[in-house]
């Protein structure tokens, strides 16, 4: 069965869609009350964020638009030192989408939410004319467990940890689009375990950021600018799988600028670097974590290359497109 405009009418079909797809998958007491707004009990200090998701193709190796929509918002809360509690989900569905497809997406969101220990407590659906696309907005609330974790709080002498391999989400999506066969999976994942382990073991996290669009280069450039410091990273320490490297060679892409959906960087005091790294590696999705650099005086991001040269790393300009030249 396909979604048609009637599913957005607010009448019978809308109600069917909500009950048979969303309530079934997101099942929780707050949502099931079906009030106009969810009533929530939260600690006084919260982190609150929103993000919209557009992915082509909607389903890819390692995830789908639903999983990304949950993980993206969850990770944005986590890197602020907050434990994610509640999400809302807004769907804009183009007519022609199979109801089964929406069900698959909702199921995947439900699984990701369970893993991240968040509840989807409010939602909305609109149907528009189009060619079978789905767009999702999620907003999230998390309880602040550690105040002061901030992009502008990197301090001199801090080391920078990266939670795992670069470029896998981007490479997985691109492989699909370019018809290149490989086993690269999107890294799309909620990073709760990593953040929780760092915080509960008293790692003094100064700054955390999830590494998404624009890649590591863009995130580090933003951190250096916000914290008025320089960042030095080491090419040899960057975790990148051979398969992603090969993929980048084919299309002339740079893993430093490729999107990830389940990676974060953290700036922590030097004397805690070893402990923090060990904690990350013990956490789910953190097994390939590395110390990749440090905070220095000055400005901008520099990379010490494999040949021991130095290279300036800037933010991404425009879109990273496959090149032949």
């Amino acid at each position, binding site marked *: 069965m396909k979604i048609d405009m009637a599913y957005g009418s607010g009448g019978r079909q809308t109600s069917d869609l909500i009950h048979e797809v969303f309530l079934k998958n997101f099942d929780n007491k707050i949502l099931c009350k079906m009030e106009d707004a969810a009533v929530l009990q939260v600690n006084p200090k919260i982190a609150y964020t929103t993000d919209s998701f557009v992915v082509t193709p909607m389903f890819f190796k390692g995830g789908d638009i639903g999983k990304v929509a949950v993980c993206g918002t969850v990770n944005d809360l986590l890197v602020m030192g907050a434990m994610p509690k509640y999400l809302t989900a807004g769907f804009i569905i183009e007519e022609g989408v199979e109801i089964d497809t929406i069900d698959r997406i909702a199921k995947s969101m439900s699984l990701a939410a369970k893993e991240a220990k968040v509840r989807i407590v409010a939602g909305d659906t609109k149907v528009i004319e189009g060619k079978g696309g789905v767009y999702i907005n999620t907003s999230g609330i998390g309880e602040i467990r550690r105040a002061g974790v901030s992009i502008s709080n990197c301090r001199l002498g801090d080391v920078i940890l990266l939670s795992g391999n670069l470029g896998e989400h981007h490479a997985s999506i691109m492989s699909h689009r*370019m018809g290149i066969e490989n086993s690269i999976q999107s890294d799309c994942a909620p990073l709760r375990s990593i953040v929780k382990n760092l915080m509960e073991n008293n790692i003094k996290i100064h700054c955390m950021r999830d590494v998404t669009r624009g890649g590591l280069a863009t995130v580090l450039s933003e951190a250096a600018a916000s914290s008025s410091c320089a960042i030095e990273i080491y090419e040899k320490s960057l975790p990148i799988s051979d398969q992603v490297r090969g993929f980048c060679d084919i299309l002339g892409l740079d893993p430093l600028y490729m999107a990830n959906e389940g990676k974060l960087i953290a700036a922590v005091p030097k004397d805690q670097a070893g402990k923090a790294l060990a904690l990350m590696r013990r956490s789910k999705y953190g097994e390939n974590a590395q110390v990749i650099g440090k905070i220095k005086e000055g400005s901008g991001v520099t*990379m010490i290359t494999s*040949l021991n040269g130095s*290279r300036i790393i800037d933010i991404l300009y425009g*879109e990273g497109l496959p090149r032949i*030249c």
Partner: protein
Amino acid sequence: MKTLELVKDELKNYNGRKIKIMEVCGTHTSSIFKNGIRSLISPQIQLISGPGCPVCVTPPAYIDKLVEYAVREKTCVLTFGDMMKVKGSRYSLTQAKAEGGNVKILYSPLSAVKMALEDKNTEFIFAAVGFETTTPIYALMMEEILKNGIKNLKLLTSIKIILPALSYLCETKENIDAFLCPGHVSVVTGCSVYKGMAEKYHKPFVVAGFEGEHILAAVDEIIHQIKKNRYYMKNLYTSSVTEEGNRKAAAITDKFFEGIDEYWRGIGIIRNSGLKLKDVYQEYDAGSRILDYTENVPKGCKCKEVILGRINPGDCPLFKTVCTPLNAVGPCMVSAEGACGIWYKNREVRP
């Protein structure tokens, strides 16, 4: 016989006369930055970028033509990702797409043939840009077009040959001391083509691959030749580059293409430096020859000097002040491989 450490040591401590080396190919320029090569060599050795970036030397009139096709009914422009950001006299293909134009990015010209077969109601225009390396591929694409009787796929060509451009650079007495020859062009042309040039112009011509080690070795070889005052072609990319090149590639190129005087953005016309589809295949050409190349060089833009290696991007008055990657005035800022674009992103490395 040397080692990496010895070469690095020699290049870092070189204190002879100032040497200007032109890396002709944009992929070399990119590799030089990615590996931080400039920080590894003496300031007495200057690496300057040449005209080997198709995005930088493709004239605005060509982009305008693509844009025109992109917004035309039932027409689709097919291009490599490289050309998306280059601005014509008004728009880039990225902007044309935003205006509703039909533009698709491809990795291989073979997909173009497939698309044309699958959708006979759309006219496909392939943006055939590039150098000696890519031309034989366009020739094979032509073979497929003929074999399948495809009528809805045409080429808009802007194909350059790098060798006449190198001769031009040598003839115009630009003070370039040596050339780092384009590795992948050389795979097709063979490295012997540089032998005569090295002799005639009395300069080192060194062929190298694209790893950082290749480039360090090539620079070291150039310094060695200059020290010895003996100039010749040296091939350091022996895994892939042979003396005579790929003959099959040359033969199929000759079957479909013939030489023309070609316009290089920022430089002007260089004799016999381009290729066009032969007259018998003109029905597969999307109007490449009717382009009016007059371009209004933006006031103050020094791209020509940059492409010719006369100045560094930092010496242009517009660099970083008016001209930035998000508001590129000249072609060299547009491309990820353009000298100015690369310098901008790496601006603090060394002036």
